[in-house]
């Protein structure tokens, strides 16, 4: 079923997306996910379940890892949001991409944007994660293809390479 029409009038919402100040006109209860994809054409954020179970729609909201399908856009007022598109500016991105490729951390790719965001979020807090940290840090992101193991390996490999630098 499609998203329900927003109730009440649309309001103007200001926030920062990937470092840029953005202004959108939206119903306050519209999902941040829909505003990112439809109004801002940031299609890298994916919808998997629409109820906060799968983590495909993960974004960073003021540095917190959130499921954008569960965030009413009004709640993002004034916030700084980072989506997968904004990740290319991150120092961690190149080692993570390389490690995902080398380890087979991506199969179909639909969970990858969320996995990358979760991995960046983890590695920023915990630059030298133990296997259990990786397992827990990614536990909110579902992958149906890999069985996760190759994703864990990729995150561990990227962390090692970053620490060495």
């Amino acid at each position, binding site marked *: 079923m499609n998203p329900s029409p927003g109730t009440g009038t649309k309001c103007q919402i200001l926030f920062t997306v990937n470092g840029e100040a953005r202004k959108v006109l939206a119903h306050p209860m519209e999902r941040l996910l829909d505003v990112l994809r439809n109004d801002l054409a940031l299609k890298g954020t994916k919808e998997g379940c629409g109820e906060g179970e799968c983590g495909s729609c993960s974004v960073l909201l003021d540095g917190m890892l959130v499921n954008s399908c569960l965030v009413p856009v009004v709640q993002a007022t004034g916030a700084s949001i980072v989506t997968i598109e904004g990740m290319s500016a991150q120092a961690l991105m190149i080692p993570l991409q390389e490690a995902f490729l080398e380890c087979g951390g991506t199969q179909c790719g639909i969970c990858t944007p969320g996995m990358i965001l979760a991995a960046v979020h983890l590695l920023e807090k915990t630059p030298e994660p133990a296997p259990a940290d990786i397992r827990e840090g990614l536990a909110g992101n579902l992958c*149906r293809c890999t*069985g996760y193991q190759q994703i864990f390996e990729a995150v561990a490999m990227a962390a090692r390479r970053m620490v060495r630098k």
Partner: protein
Amino acid sequence: MVTAKDIPGKNCISLILDDQPCLAAETVNHPEEPILLLAHADCRMLRKAVDAVSIEYEPLPPVHTMEESERQSTIIWGTDNAFKSYLVEKGDVEAVWKDAAHIVEGEYFTGAQEQLYIENNGVIAAFDPEDGVTVWGSLQCPYYVHKALMALCGLPEDKIRVVQMETGGAFGGKEEYPSMIAGHAALLSIKSQRPVKIVYDRMEDMVATTKRHPSRTRHRTAVSKDGQILGGEIEFTIDGGAYATLSSVVLSRGTIHAGGPYYWPSVRIRAKAVATNTPPHGAFRGFGAPQSLFAMERHMDHIAQVAGISPVEVRRRNFLKPGQTTTTEQTIREDIDLDHLLGRALELSDYAAKKARFAEENRSGMRKKGMGIAAFLHGAGFTGSGERYLNSLVGVEAGADGGVRVLVSSAEFGQGTNTVLCQIAAEALALPYEGVMIARPDTTVVPNSGPTVASRTAMIVGTLVQSAAQGIKQTLMKTGLLGDNYTPEQFRASCGQFIRTHGALKSYARYEAPGDVYWDDEKYRGEAYAAFAWAVYVAEVSVDLTTYAVTVDDFVALQEVGKVLHPVLAEGQITGGVAQAIGFALYEKVVWQNGRMINNQMTNYIMPTSADLPPIRVFFEQLGNVHGAHGAKGIGELPMDGPAPAIVNGVEDAIGVRFRSIPLLPEDVFEALQPEPPRQQGPSSTRGTT
């Protein structure tokens, strides 16, 4: 707004039997059957539109279980509720019972399973009076959709174009269903004269699309006093849902795999796919084999107990050997040594030491541990005569700049198809991998190389890619433009020269059945598959007697799949398949109510997360050489077959309860461990007898 009356062609989703309507005209046969299509420029308005629709139903008696369907007191499909049945007969089964030291019986069940690709089904269709219908979608088999749309829209071949877009997982779930959703989008587009997009949300996708067929398998086996199988009867039944769709083919694979990797001097297998008033069940990785192999491998442990030998020994004594025949009387010509595979898997899992230690430690404490084994096989490619009918065609083309493009309808949805087929072409042309690209599967660009299913892509399509690529090389050599031992630069130059003279450089290869392959569709006898992949898996499990949860602590997956073409991708196929199969065994339960899945959310249909899975240790052994792309055999479905029985065998080892049904949830374990009255799991009362 579109109803059945608006359909320009035939109101069906054309597949095998064409019995499933695209839109119900008079009767609905399951709760999710489409009747009316609504579209609006603002999709948010559709909720209001749906609320304004009311449909009056005149109820008819429903059939919701295989048993009700078999009873035939209500006929919902054909004359007997049976989509298809097979009978396999090898040797004289009647003669074996009298010589049997033991007759071992058992009945086993597997539940429905949702593919749960993370990207739901979705398509865009656009109609143009000149060009006809174009569909872009998340799908596995562009030519299945193409065929279905020709019939539905009443348009010729060249007025239907199907393009596979990046596909966020499929696992069989985008084999046949995309024809339905593409049909709906096409009809709306034809009527509205505008492009139409349909993307299911998760609840719609889970409730309406295909799932793995639920199954019931009954075994009755004559066994010698030392645990050798003398012969037996296997009855394999699957629930096909409301329409025939692919059930006959799923049943076929399940039937052929029902005897496992064992030698049966005689056997009779009766298999049937029956109709129920649920959405049609369909393709899902393994395609019938995980169901019948679950039964076989649970039954082997049962046979071991009755014969008083170990689960290891019962398998050793019954393994198929080169020169012996399978249940369909296919002679094993591969140089396979299952004894060796088993020995190696036991060693890698430290089976014997752990089993002994757990037996000791299980005397106390609330956490009981066990070890379980499963040995199995998976046939690569279409069953029997299937590849011959498919008659696949593959192209390879080179451009004036020497760039090579592979033209296949095989779709990438995470398995590594694009990588592996480009690897094969690059190798055949002695070019670097980067010199080869793959065309997007678009029916106006690529030939029909068959569907992306049945673990056939690397082995069957890969072989055709190899010979089409060689065709390019031979053409250039024959015309004298290219010598032996050329460099990539020389190759590029020669392509340029050839194209300046001849216009284009393309080479095609068509499937040719090996001459000596015998298959009898009537008697279900002969060479079922060109090659089998073989495996022995070992699961180390714990059962927590406080929570009744079963966890898998370690998992060894050892397989013989011929030549591994890409070790990282191949390992990913195994770990991903094992993870899905752990879900099949322990977590993923479809709850049915009146033919409808009622837990159609990721919140209450539970797939494994990163916190639920053990280390999955993957090992490959190559024992022989098969004909095919560099000796590769199918790999994608194999890992779906073994984990469930290995895990449930491990649970029995840990707590001594003979579970015969999956998924095995904590409540099932709890119920089975209640002291009084002793209850059996599952609806049946059949017990193993001696």
